[in-house]
């Protein structure tokens, strides 16, 4: 057990998985000697060599397309997109092939690849470095879409993603890469893809979030308890596709009030799907309209105005109070 940042925890997942399984190949721009621009793959090339850690030419479709071929052959490539904002240049490879080669070959081939990408705001980055476009991927049949929220679960989910027989999009909240440390066990640990978890139990309302927004959501939940004695239940989705609707539906049946928090734009955002499921499965248990705290339907602003755009604890508390005051 050691205290680790998310970057260190992800690095540990790679080291242990690669040592055990020679089929695991890490590839991407600057993932070798540079260790990745966020250092997630630091030291891997020294430990596993240039055959296992590929510094690729600068071409996202080339990287992902090549990984599709490698995965179909039987390897387990893990591609790094340097920023999720650059992954759109590989979008067609994911949509047309990674997500459907199993179908297109009627099961002869499958694509056990992972596409990792840092996403989201909060690090004062350049343009095209801060979007939260998880729904692009969550909408595609054949893919799985995972977003961890802390070091320990990030490590466990990455191991699961690498072992998964289907392609997994693995969004890493870059605002959390070094934001805090957690105890991470030495022995290998997995967390099942497709499962969410209750990270704070409560009875008065259900707050549903994931990724970098888990911190302000939990902060808001604590503040609501201290200020108003409100007991909020907080759910960390962890997997956006397939969505673990059983967990949040059961919670809302208990609390009767629900809100969704994400930094992605509101319209057609993850909240839209989560709320649809809640309406379908727990409508008669609802005591108030479901609330959303999200990014506006605009391009995320450059960093001088970013903090006004991103949901924070204060905004979440205001919406929670509105939700609680509904008759």
């Amino acid at each position, binding site marked *: 057990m050691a205290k680790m940042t998310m970057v260190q925890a992800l690095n540990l997942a790679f080291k242990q998985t690669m040592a055990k399984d020679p089929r695991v*190949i890490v590839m991407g721009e600057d993932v070798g000697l540079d260790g990745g621009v966020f250092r997630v793959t630091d030291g891997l090339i020294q430990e596993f060599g240039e*055959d296992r850690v590929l510094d*690729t*030419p600068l*071409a996202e*479709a*080339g990287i*992902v*397309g*090549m*990984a*599709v*071929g*490698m*995965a*179909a*052959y*039987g*390897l387990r*490539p893990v591609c790094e997109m340097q920023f999720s904002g650059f992954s759109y*240049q590989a979008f*067609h*490879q994911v949509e*047309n*092939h990674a997500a459907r*080669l*199993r*179908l*297109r*070959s*009627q*099961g*002869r*081939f*499958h694509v056990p690849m992972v596409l990792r990408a840092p996403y989201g705001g909060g690090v004062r980055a350049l343009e095209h470095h801060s979007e939260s476009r998880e729904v692009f991927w969550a909408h595609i*049949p*054949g893919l799985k879409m995972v977003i961890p929220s802390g070091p320990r679960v990030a490590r466990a989910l990455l191991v699961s993603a690498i072992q998964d*027989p*289907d392609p997994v999009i693995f969004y890493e909240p870059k605002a959390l890469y070094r934001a805090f440390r957690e105890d991470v066990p030495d022995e290998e640990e997995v967390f099942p893809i*497709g499962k969410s978890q209750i990270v704070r139990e409560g009875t008065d309302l259900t707050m549903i979030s994931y990724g970098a927004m888990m911190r302000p959501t939990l902060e808001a939940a604590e503040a609501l308890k201290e200020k108003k004695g409100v007991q909020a239940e907080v759910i960390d989705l962890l997997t956006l596709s*397939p*969505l673990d*609707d*059983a967990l949040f539906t059961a919670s809302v049946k208990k609390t009767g009030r629900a809100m969704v928090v994400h930094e992605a734009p509101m319209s057609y955002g993850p909240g839209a799907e989560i709320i649809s499921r809640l309406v379908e499965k727990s409508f008669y248990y609802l005591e108030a309209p479901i609330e959303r705290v999200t990014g506006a339907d605009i391009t995320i602003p450059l960093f001088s105005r970013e903090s006004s755009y991103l949901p924070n604890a204060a905004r979440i508390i205001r919406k929670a109070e509105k939700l609680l005051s509904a008759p």
Partner: protein
Amino acid sequence: MPRKTINFPDKIEYISILDENGRLDKSLEPDLPQDVLLRLYRYMVLGRRFDQRLLNLQRQGRIGTFPPISGQEAAHLGAVAPLTTDDWMVPAFRETAAELYRGRSLESVILGNAGFSEGSSIPEDQNMFPMSVPIATQLPHAVGLGWAIKYDKKDNIVMVFFGDGATSEGDFHEALNFAGVYQVPVVFVCQNNQWAISIPRSKQTRSQTLAQKALAYGITGVQVDGNDILAVYTAAKEAADHGRAGKGATLIECVTYRLMMHTTADDPKRYRKDEEVEQWKARDPIIRFGKYLKYKGFLDDGKMKSIETEVDREIQDAVDRAEAEMKKLTDPLHMFEHIYAELPPHIQIQRSEMARELTELQKEADHG
């Protein structure tokens, strides 16, 4: 400081062995055994006659739209002829005769064209990818397969197909670049059939040849007469040997012609002249190869006729089998197969809801 010239390998070879008049360059003639030559001829005839039969089926509404291969038989059959069973073929969608040559069944082609996903099923013993419709997207897959073969320390090669239009796509350039960087055993076979639907080769690129695009990526480029199966075979054999020997990738440009429409949904009269098609018919790859086989004493008119009869029977049997098979593939819920290794719970629910709805609707229809 005076300007200097940077020297790099800037020569592209052009290979023609058997010209359109049936003249043979004996010094370049490949040493292919009679059975292989006859097998290639048979598959050329099969590919051509299968096109005609599929066109009839399409016009009768028995299958959907499909991309005919006529005119390009030499350009793809000659290319796959040097491959071993363990080598990989990554097709685009106009290499049907080569897929058949490598073991794909006629029925699977018919089923696929009739809108059944079962048609793209690939047996475990065939190292072949399914046809790929989005242009050039299959090229990086070939690079990945090639990389994996090297990692696996095998001496197999990968052959990937695409058209002249594909050379304008980013994936073409990314794949050739990666292939150069990683020195993978990949043979890129461009079926330059002069037309990307309605866009002629001259409007696709200002390059004098498509083969020369290889030079920018540090791999070998060669242009061949794509209607000369001996030339295509020779270039493909050299490229395959080159790849097997660890010398990296090759781009082969087969100069050929699409004699029919892009797909059956297309009307080529809108964009090209009949005279042009007639000129290319004079360079027909099958007639030319037939003359060669007669000259070698491997074929005569009687044998040619009996090959056509045999092939027609084979096609008819396949149509019969495919249509019988289609009648059995009635379960609409098959659409939920092969989406994930294990269907997630919410899709299982969608599947059972669809099953229930379809049953209920059927009952209503029966009683209505």
